[in-house]
């Protein structure tokens, strides 16, 4: 093992190389571009034995790796924001075909208005597509998840594609220490590729054809069952990775100080770091708060969140996306799982890269806790944490400027 100093994007590229990926295809988009740039460089230098297929769009990029994967190659692509939306049809195609492959998504806001900074809207746009969807907190975890993604996706109990989410700039363009194992160690841990079927010119094989409606519905159920099975596979892979490489994250959810907590912060992505710092300060003030960091948006960690819901006085959820006309998408999943068992607040914050600092998390969490302690059961599904200079003002006051 070697400690390198890598951006989140380079960390992903190193993991892809160590996974011995054979086909890469992608179309450049900020802030993803440096992942495939690095891979192109590795291939060009002869450090990586793979084919880089250049295409004219993200739709074609995913179609290309889908083709390569169907033919038996370990394949990878990466994208972000508008690129991800542009490939959305293929996103469903790959999952419906139960084709294992891995894609990194450097989560970024969607325009218009144009914005290249972080939020989770692009990832949540893929939520229902049948992909396993993970979110990293640090560059190291982006590396670890990428390596793990191949093993999870290619497990016969799963056979679903997997997205590795890492955040625009905050991870993608920030250098940090990353522990990179050597090729031998990775080869010992990551088995050769497995997949449900392989297409070849020698055999007759029909893919993606029309089926009876009844079979269609059974195939949808099979994806749901595979998602359920993936929960155990994710935990197994996390444990075995921890045993081999020394880092275990806790499966679908990483819990910090949940054991004795009266209140829980639910959050996903790099700002979980700020949440973990916030609870240290909150605990010094006597607020017993824990952080449950969602590592996997799909499959949804139903059991873990349910267990927390039955033992705490309240849960505050931080969403970096919004389902327009409803609530934050993470909140919706939490509320369904909680089913009225505890107090809830759904905070929508940090859209378009607006900065959410430790102090902000402390402020809204404390306010929520005080309210629950005074009023008993609280249900606040939608609480917008606005950025400066709008924060702290009544909406009526800032509203005329925007709608």
């Amino acid at each position, binding site marked *: 093992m070697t*400690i390198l*100093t890598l951006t989140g994007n380079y960390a992903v590229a190193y993991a892809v190389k160590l996974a011995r990926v054979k086909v890469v295809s992608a179309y450049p988009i900020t802030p993803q571009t440096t992942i495939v740039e690095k891979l192109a460089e590795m291939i060009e230098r002869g450090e990586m034995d793979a084919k880089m297929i250049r295409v004219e769009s993200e739709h074609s990029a995913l179609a290309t790796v889908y083709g390569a994967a169907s033919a038996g190659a370990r394949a990878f692509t990466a994208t972000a924001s508008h690129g991800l939306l542009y490939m959305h049809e293929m996103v469903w195609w790959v999952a419906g075909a139960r084709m294992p492959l891995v894609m990194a998504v450097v989560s970024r806001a969607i325009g218009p208005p144009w914005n*290249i*900074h972080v939020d989770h809207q692009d990832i949540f746009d893929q939520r229902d597509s049948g992909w396993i969807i993970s979110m990293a907190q640090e560059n190291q975890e982006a590396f670890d998840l990428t390596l793990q993604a191949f093993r999870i996706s290619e497990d016969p109990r799963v056979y679903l594609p997997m997205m590795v989410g890492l955040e625009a*700039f*905050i*991870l993608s*363009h*920030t*250098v*940090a*220490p990353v522990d990179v194992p050597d090729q031998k160690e990775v080869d010992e841990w990551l088995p050769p590729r497995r997949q449900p079927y392989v297409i070849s010119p020698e055999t007759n094989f029909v893919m993606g054809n029309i089926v009876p409606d009844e079979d269609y519905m059974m195939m949808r159920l099979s994806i749901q069952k595979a998602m359920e099975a993936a929960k155990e596979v994710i935990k197994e892979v996390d444990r075995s990775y921890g045993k081999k490489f020394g880092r275990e994250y806790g499966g679908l959810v990483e819990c910090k100080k949940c054991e004795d907590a009266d209140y829980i912060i639910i959050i996903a992505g*790099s*700002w979980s*770091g*700020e949440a*973990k*710092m916030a609870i240290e300060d909150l605990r010094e003030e006597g607020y017993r708060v824990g952080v449950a960091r969602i590592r996997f948006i799909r499959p949804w960690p139903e059991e873990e969140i349910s267990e927390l819901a039955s033992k705490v006085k309240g849960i505050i959820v931080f969403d970096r996306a919004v389902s327009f006309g409803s609530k934050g998408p993470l909140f919706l999943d939490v509320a369904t799982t909680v089913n009225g068992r505890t107090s809830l607040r759904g905070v929508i914050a940090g859209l378009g*890269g607006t*900065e*959410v*600092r*430790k102090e902000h998390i402390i402020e809204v969490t404390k306010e929520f806790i005080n309210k629950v302690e005074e009023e008993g059961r609280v249900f606040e599904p939608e609480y917008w944490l606005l950025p400066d200079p709008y924060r702290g003002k009544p909406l009526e006051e800032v509203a005329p400027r925007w709608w």
Partner: protein
Amino acid sequence: MLVELRFHGRGGQGAVTAANILARAAVIEGKYAQAFPYFGAERRGAPVMAFARISDRPLEVHSQVRNPDIVVVLDPAIPQLVDVTQGIKPGGLIVLNSPGKSNIKYERVYCVNATKIAKDLGLVIGGWPVVNTAILGALIKVSTLVKVESLEKAIEEQLGEALAKTNIEAMRRAYNEVKPCER
């Protein structure tokens, strides 16, 4: 202990690379570090910023650096355009690329003529003196953030063997030449 730094430069001058090299040197010493650019569009020649954090504990923070302990200024003209002291903590320090004078209103400001060092050593790309490795030499002298050997190793890794030799020379010269600015 956590030290936060802000680098001011112009697009193309190597502020981001300087922050990256410094972070690498800290990691070589077994510390934890981060380095990142200002999260905005950057243009060659326009004022830009980069940031770094060095800590003896794993870093969980991901927000921008607002109150740096140290400010590094790669371009002598930047202080006329930008308030480089913004948010700096009391008791910190500023390292400035300048022949020796500064009118920055802050207690500890150190000057090094990084432009001259770069030009003397032929570190010029497209007519631009590349001052980032020189300024790092001055920085580690006055801040003792990392050892010279660690910075040398980081420069070698980051820039490759061919470029490293002259850049290390620039770094060492700045290390020896840096002194408090005259007012």
